[in-house]
């Protein structure tokens, strides 16, 4: 479903991603691990066409998105959910309005159907009682759950999550990771999670890649990672 080949990107002459190649199959959960500043978020932004690579190709459902202009990318992005690190909810809208926004923009659902769909997804993420609240009235974990609901409301077949557990305590981190895992399995969506949270990544990932200074230094299943003898991987795991 997503194929990346020889992807490179630099900012002001400073390489951030170097010759990355990997692919993600339908319904798979891939976790991109790495230290802060290793290029995880930059890579995610490439997968949705927000950033253009200096070199390489990115194919989403067989279509190379790199040469596409912004207007065409807007169409492709309707099928991709993106969970931002801090949620990026509209602060002038309630939780309900935020989650209903993609439906309002891209579907012809009637008001009653929209209410039903939004209520259902918000119940799924445990925010049934927060429909009328504004993002400023929510805790960090609730904001992430609302943002997750917004990211999957269009039944997206691809979900990209940028540091979904950062800034949360271990319990909330586990909750949000389980939620992502559960929703992805329910919706059968291909998921890419950028994270440095090793514990939760090992629990939810089908496959993992480890980035260091913009390069892939290891890849495999969670079991492969755990059994690796590589010093950096071991250091990262502990």
């Amino acid at each position, binding site marked *: 479903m997503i194929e990346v080949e020889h992807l490179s990107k630099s900012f002001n002459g400073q390489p951030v991603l170097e010759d990355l190649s990997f692919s993600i199959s339908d319904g798979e959960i891939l976790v991109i691990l790495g230290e802060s500043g290793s290029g995880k978020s930059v890579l995610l932004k490439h997968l949705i066409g927000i950033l253009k690579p200096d070199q390489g190709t990115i194919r989403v459902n067989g279509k190379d998105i790199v040469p596409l202009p912004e207007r065409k990318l807007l169409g492709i992005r309707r099928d991709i959910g993106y969970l931002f690190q801090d949620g990026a909810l*509209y*602060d002038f809208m309630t939780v309900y309005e935020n989650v209903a926004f993609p439906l309002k923009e891209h579907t012809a659902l009637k008001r009653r159907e929209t209410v039903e769909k939004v209520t259902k997804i918000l119940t799924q993420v445990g925010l049934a009682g927060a429909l009328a609240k504004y993002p400023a009235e929510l805790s960090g974990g609730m904001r992430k759950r609302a943002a997750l609901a917004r990211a999957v409301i269009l039944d997206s077949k691809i979900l990209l999550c940028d540091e979904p557990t950062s800034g949360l305590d271990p319990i909330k981190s586990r909750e949000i990771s389980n939620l992502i895992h559960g929703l992805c399995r329910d919706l059968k969506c291909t998921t890419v999670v950028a994270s440095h949270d090793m514990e939760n990544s090992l629990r939810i990932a089908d496959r993992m890649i480890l980035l260091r200074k913009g390069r892939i230094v290891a890849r495999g299943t969670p079991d492969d990672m755990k059994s690796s003898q590589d010093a950096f991987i071991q250091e990262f795991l502990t």
Partner: protein
Amino acid sequence: MILKSLNKLYEFLIEIGNALFFLGEVFAYILTGRVRWGELLKQIYEQGIQSIVIVGMTSFACGAVLALQGYVMLNRFGTKEYVAHLVVLSLVRELSPVFTSFIFSGKAGARMAAELGTMNVNDQILATRTMGVDPVAYLVLPRMLASMAVLPVLVVFSEVIGIAGGYMIGVMDANIPSSTYIHQTLRAVHFVDFFSGFIKTVFFAVIVSWVCCYQGYRTTGGSLGVGRYTTRAVAYSYMFVVLSNTVLTKIILAFWG
């Protein structure tokens, strides 16, 4: 040193190009008629309501001060009745369009820049793009169209209130008979005077909303950046309003006197 200056010039030209491209995108949406009417009406309400009290107060004071100063000078020549001419022509041709644009820029313009800037630093504009929605169409276009609708109305309101301020001083302080003052006011102002001020207002509305939305849209650097870009938005709008007013006045006078 030369290289540094050339680099600065290059960056400046790129910035101008980006700002023009941004304006082009907005006009392209206007021409294709893809306007979100609900958002537009919300913005018209917010921008109009936000500015109306302060525009009314300053316009009344402005008309009153014009009449006070005019009366002192014109009385020396025994032509105090012409105070009405001075007030209405000054307001309609110059002062109301320019002052109202300044006030609008300081209130609604600063708000636009700060709102868009905050949304930008909190990734909300980026989130709009990731949801397959063009932020220019959703966030910028309604704000700019609302400014183009609201500012001309505010200017007409300012002119009426300013004339009322002048009337109060003319009648109560300069002892000009009420009927004379009203007659002189109506005799002084012609359609071309009103029209020339109105044309300027439309230009100012585009300038203020363009500058403020563009500065907000490109804000970076967290809360400090929001402050910096908002201040810059208001300062640039003032500057461009004053400069364009000079050019427009010259053109209007050349065509209509």
